[in-house]
């Protein structure tokens, strides 16, 4: 089971270390993590995606909740949540048509094209992790030179 956790934490040094350490020491895994300060500079919002069965996810939430530096820990329902990840791909250009093909592919996924050079180009794509992975599969035949992904950021929809 894939779970999206949203944490409101104290914006203090060392908190990221404590959170990630809890995962390591209790034998859980972080699939992705993104951190940023909130509108109130005293707090940061962390979005963590993790994989585990129901019992494990429940235990992760409890262990995070127990930590003194966490103020709120929510397991988000992905159907009631806006969640996106930013990814940047550097893709190889071998044939004359490649840049056009990649452009089309990027458009189909709502991506943006950057830095088109003779031998490579870049695609910026903000989407769900599934969509990013689907794009990656389709871009693979061209030759992916590099990928950078941010991990998921997520917020629950109002009234959800």
């Amino acid at each position: 089971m894939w779970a999206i956790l949203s944490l409101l934490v104290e914006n203090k040094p060392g908190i990221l270390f404590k959170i990630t350490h809890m995962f390591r020491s209790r034998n859980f895994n972080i699939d992705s993590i993104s951190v940023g300060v909130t509108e109130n500079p005293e707090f940061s919002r962390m979005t963590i995606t993790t994989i585990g069965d129901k019992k494990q996810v429940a235990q992760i939430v409890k262990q995070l909740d127990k930590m003194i530096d966490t103020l709120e820990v929510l397991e988000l329902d992905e159907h009631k949540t806006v969640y996106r990840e930013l990814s940047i791909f550097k893709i190889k250009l071998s044939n004359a048509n490649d840049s056009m093909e990649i452009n089309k592919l990027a458009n189909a996924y709502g991506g943006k094209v950057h830095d088109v050079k003779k031998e490579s180009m870049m695609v910026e794509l903000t989407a769900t992790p599934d969509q990013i992975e689907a794009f990656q599969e389709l871009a693979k035949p061209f030759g992916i030179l590099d990928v950078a992904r941010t991990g998921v950021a997520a917020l629950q929809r109002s009234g959800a």
Partner: protein
Amino acid sequence: MAIDLVNKMETMKGARALMVALEKEGVKEVFGLPGGANLPMYDEFSRCNIRHILTRHEQSAAHMADGFGRVSRKPGVCFATSGPGATNILTGIATAQADSAPMVAVTGQVPVEMIGRDAFQESDIIGMANPVVKYAYQPRDASEVPEVVRKGFFIAETGRPGPVLIDIPKDVQTNEAEMTFPDEFKIRGYHPWSDPDMVNSEKAIDMLLSAEKPVILAGGGTIISSAFAELQAIAELLMIPVVTTFKGKGAFPENHPLSLGPIGMHGHAEANKIMTEADCVLAIGTRFSDRSVGTFETFEKRLKIIHMDVDPAEIGKNQTTSVAVVGDVRSSLRIMVNMLVKKAIKKTEENNWLKHVKETKAYWKENLKLHPGEMGAAKILRKLRELLPHKSIVTTEVGQHQMWASLFFDVIHPGTFFSSTGLGTMGWGFPAAIGAKVARPDVHVVDIAGDGSFAMTENSLATAVLEDIPVIVFVLNNSSLGMVAQWQRTFYERRMIGIDEKHCPDYVKLAESYGAQGIRAQSMDELDRAIKTALSSNVATVIDIPIDPEEDVLPFVAPGTSLADMVLPS
């Protein structure tokens, strides 16, 4: 001198503020060892009413604070310097964390501007200690010290207790600042208490009433929250037999007709037996450790589990529960007792289950085979029990002697037995006994020890003698690392390696060299005299009792098996 500064703004050094804040918390003793980075704190001892108790190793200082904390239920305080001083207390901190003991450890640190430069005696103790503390502070400005101490004590002693580390850079100790000592403060992410859960308390009672073969499993949380009277009330009202975890040993008087003693790897045969037959368990303040329940799966499949704990993260961690009652177990039990009283539920007639329980208990009392020799572990520990007043405090080291104590030393007065049960730290018992004696100078304190464990912190004899803290170390001496030897005999076809201590040192001479009393007891008569002498002396005493190195601790539930697979003496 110090206390009248409270609540007024006052300019003082960070180190002075630390001592004033400690006095405000009611601290009378600090266990510790000085070094370069905590000298400013030590300099303040001459200007305050706190007694410094010098240890010969920082690990022992932490264990003393731990023992003090478990007995007094107020955080024990230990001091260590930076670098190796700080890393030396880590084992002590981890021990306190594993057993939920309140402690405040204060370490010196290199000055703020030196942090991160691999300075002399610098260690990132905050980073290292993080996984084994309840919380850690490193004030970067002297003005933060009073609030950090207040919050540190609050965190250490509330909810599920635990160790708090306060790491103070040397310049933060020496810098002056305007200090305010707050009475009120807020830790917005910390919620140690929850409202009593009436609904689930009611459900728990219904479940216990409808169970055919109920049992109460009292864990260490029962002792931490002093829920002794409540536990006894509920057991007696419902006439339910009580087993404990090892950490819960002594939560319930072990001479009570409903008491079966500890379950687990070296649990009492009758307790393990009844636990495997029960259909419903009221588990109080326990985390269902592997040492208590054997394999996790077999336990929860058979039983309806009602789980009471102050820590919500313990619910469902190791066992799937039928009903969970989160909150201080004493308050929750009190609610349940009141509900029973209101409903006028008081069982008076022994049902078949209870008859069976009593028969099982009687059977094992008669039929458990013991070591045939005069100086078998059971005889030795029963002799100690016979002569030791019931309110005396007992600690143990870690190893065979510890498990023999669990089997053969009955705790009659609740909350008088303490051991390193979670981390299993050899060397804990003696310094913890010293801490316990400081907290309770009015009672005898005995460390039930083995030679291997005692060797790890035996230099605390210096502390016991010089600081006049007369505890008794009761060494069951098989001149070997006995538990390891037992495993090598049992699981490694007697390939004995790394276990022979070859009668070194001579513990009587060792004790005498520290100025303590050393007595060797080689027969029951000598043991009788030795215990009586120790109890009537006011100097630390080591009783060295040579025993058979081949004696095993039995019954034994091998790791990875269930309580039903208990191996009995043949």
